[in-house]
C-alpha cells in the first residue's frame, strides 16, 4: 500500500502570500518527523513557493495536485 495517511490538515485557502507558507511552517513545528501535512491553498504563487520551501527546509512534497484553482500539497516532515 502506498496510500498516504494524513496526520494533519491546513486550510490556507483565501490567504495571500506569504501566509500559506508561514502557517505551513507553524504547523510543521508542532509535528514530528515523518508525519504528513496536507495543505490547501489558493495563492497563485503556491506551486513555486512550496517547491522552494520544500527544497530549502528539506520537508518533502509527497503529493501535489490542482483542482479548480485550489492547490493541494502533502508534505512529509523532515
Amino acid at each position, binding site marked *: 500500500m502506498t496510500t498516504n495517511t494524513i496526520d494533519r490538515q491546513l486550510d490556507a485557502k*483565501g*490567504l*495571500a*502570500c*506569504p*501566509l500559506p*507558507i*508561514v*502557517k*505551513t*511552517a*507553524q504547523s510543521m*513545528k508542532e509535528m514530528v518527523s515523518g508525519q504528513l501535512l496536507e495543505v490547501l491553498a489558493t495563492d497563485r504563487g503556491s506551486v513555486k513557493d512550496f517547491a*522552494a*520551501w520544500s527544497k*530549502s*527546509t528539506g520537508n518533502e512534497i509527497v503529493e501535489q495536485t490542482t483542482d479548480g484553482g485550489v492547490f493541494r500539497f502533502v508534505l512529509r516532515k523532515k
Partner: protein
Amino acid sequence: MTEPLNLVLFSGTDDRLTAASVLAAGAAALGKPVNVFLQYWALDAFRRERIAVDHGLAPEAGAEGRAHVDALRAAGQASWADTFRQAKELGGVDIEACSLSMDLLGIEEKDLDPIVDGVEGVTAFYLNAGEGQVVFI
C-alpha cells in the same frame, strides 16, 4: 540559509510596511534569521498607540493604488503588523528600534508595540547583520 536577512525599515506607509512584513515572514518560514531595524517613520508606525491605525500609502499609489490596497484588505489580507506577529511566532525574527530615531521622535521603549524587542544602535545592527543582505525599505 544561515546568513540573516536584515531589513532596515525607514518608510512608515502601510504599503511599504506590508512589503517588508512579507519579506520578513517568507524568510522566517525558510528558517532564515531576520533582523529588523526601525528608523524614522517606520519606527513611528510601531508605536503602541499607532500600530493599528491607517498609515497611508506611498505617493506613487494614487487613488487607483488606494483602491487596489483596500480591495485586497477587504478580501482578508492580513495587516503588516499581523504578518510581523506571525513571522515572530515562527522564531528567529528580532525587531529593534534605532536609538537615534527614538531620540528624534522623542519616544520611550514603553511607547512601542510589544512586537518590538528592544532598542539598539547601528553598530549592534551591523554586528547582528553579519554577512547577510541588508535591505532598505
